[in-house]
């Protein structure tokens, strides 16, 4: 019962099987989130590497009651922001508005087998970072708006409006998909 709690307790007891289970259980989602946020698969892997090291290092101090996935997603989002800040230049789309259509085929799309999904991914990476982060946390991370608001320290209404903008922009970007090859 309460598998995540159970896994975390096993992890606190330095059980490698628990680490492997957590990794297998959440890797796909975490990797998709990290890549979506960073638009760079190697940076995303570095990000996840750091997150799992942190999970093990801080395991006794982690206060996770039932939602280990939520905790890991927040770690990924924080680490992604740190990574972007550390790039010593203003990250693309972190605060500025990007163009309203797909201009660049992201090389990550080669790692996505489904063509439609690859197009959507490419569109997601064109969103302004604030919108992209909320879209990814909500849709891929399964986080509700109030939780995202708490995590980001902004109002729920701001989260909702940014999400709405993100959807509208994605719709517009995908509408023009025929103009661009993936």
């Amino acid at each position, binding site marked *: 019962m309460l598998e995540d709690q159970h896994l975390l307790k096993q992890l606190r007891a330095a059980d490698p099987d628990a680490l492997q289970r957590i990794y297998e259980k959440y890797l796909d989602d975490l990797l998709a989130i990290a890549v979506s946020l960073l638009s760079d698969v190697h940076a995303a*892997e570095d990000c996840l590497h750091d997150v799992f090291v942190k999970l093990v290092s801080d395991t006794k101090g982690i206060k996770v009651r039932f939602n280990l996935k939520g905790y890991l997603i927040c770690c990924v989002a924080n680490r992604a922001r740190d990574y972007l800040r550390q790039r010593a230049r203003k990250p693309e789309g972190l605060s500025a508005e990007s163009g309203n259509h797909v201009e660049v085929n992201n090389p990550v799309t080669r790692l996505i087998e489904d063509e439609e999904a690859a197009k959507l991914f490419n569109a997601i990476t064109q969103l302004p970072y604030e919108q992209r982060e909320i879209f990814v946390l909500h849709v891929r991370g399964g986080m509700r708006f109030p939780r995202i608001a708490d995590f980001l320290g902004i109002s729920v209404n701001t989260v909702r409006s940014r999400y709405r903008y993100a959807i509208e922009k994605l719709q517009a970007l995908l509408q023009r998909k025929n103009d661009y090859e993936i």
Partner: protein
Amino acid sequence: MKSENDIERMAKEIRITRDAVSRERILAGAREKLQGLGDTHPDIWSYIMKRRSIQLTAAAAIILVAVAIISISRIDVATPAYALDQTIDAIKKVKTVHMTGEFYWRGEFECWLQFDGNPDVPTHMWMSNCGHLEGIYSPDGLFHFNRTTHYVFPISQDQRGRRWIIKFNSFFKDAMKAAGKMDAVSISHEEESIVVRIHTPKRDQQFLVDPETKLPISFSTIRDDDPMEMVSRQALTLRNIDWIRYNEDPPEGIFNVPADATIVRNDFDCWVTPDSGLVADGMTKPEACLEIARQTGKALIDLDIERLCKLDLFFLQYAPEHWELLKKRKESEPWANEYVITGDVYEEGEFWYVPSEIRINGDTCEVLTMMVKFYEMEGKTICVIVGAKETGVAD
């Protein structure tokens, strides 16, 4: 134009394909870090999930832990009137030991040991640590036995390693090996007993020794500044031994499983009593499954300990210390506030399953497929949650 739902659905389906090497690289650092932590003591939470079978039969640790405490204290060999080796010699002649006491995290226990020449290796052991459930060790094997239901579960032979054996002779012997300074131990003679006090920075403990037989008759923890340290140890740890009696005849048959006992397939079957679970009379099995799942979910949200332990065998493994910890955390942190049945009840083999979720403020925090088993006891049908599909059965 794609709808919002279409976009969300597609986004959820995005899969980033990575080869095995890349996937392995992500985990390499964590693995290395974890290996470095391997020698540290697990904290209390690792014990919440500790297997009951180990708890019941780790009696060897009872004495060993006490010995370790004494050993670090560097005991002097003797006072003019009493020497600790007198106790060691006396223990060598013991035939049976009967004692009751309290573990740090398993509560009260009662134990019988029987020896046949070697005081470090009992031939028989009986231990009751959880009310109706008993652990029996004898040349015939190792069993968990429920004296109420007469259900017995034979534990596999390969678990009968040395960790099962109480080295009672080592109770004081190991302490003698560490004899040296007198700064942490004091021995005094009182009216009816010899008092051996051990002082360490975190706790004070004492043994009472019978001045006539020189055998230890009780053990108690007088001061403990860090009880959670003892809770977190690998083995069962003693808080007190109320009394130790020697060379009494054990109750007849205490080391035997009655001939009419019913051998059960699962260890958890031994835990069930007629008072366990939910009386399912008058309900169909699917109805009973839904009802016990709902009641368990509510009890979890309310942290209703009595109800949880009654309905779900898993929670019988929780020690009083753990419940106290959970109560504090419930007050200070977000806690489950919604339990939802998410699918139809279905049957597989001897179990029934109830798909469900636990949620905090609308967020799904745990998916659970409750495993329910039905028993016929005292003319009534009861159902009990014995585990979850995601985590296996309580054992």
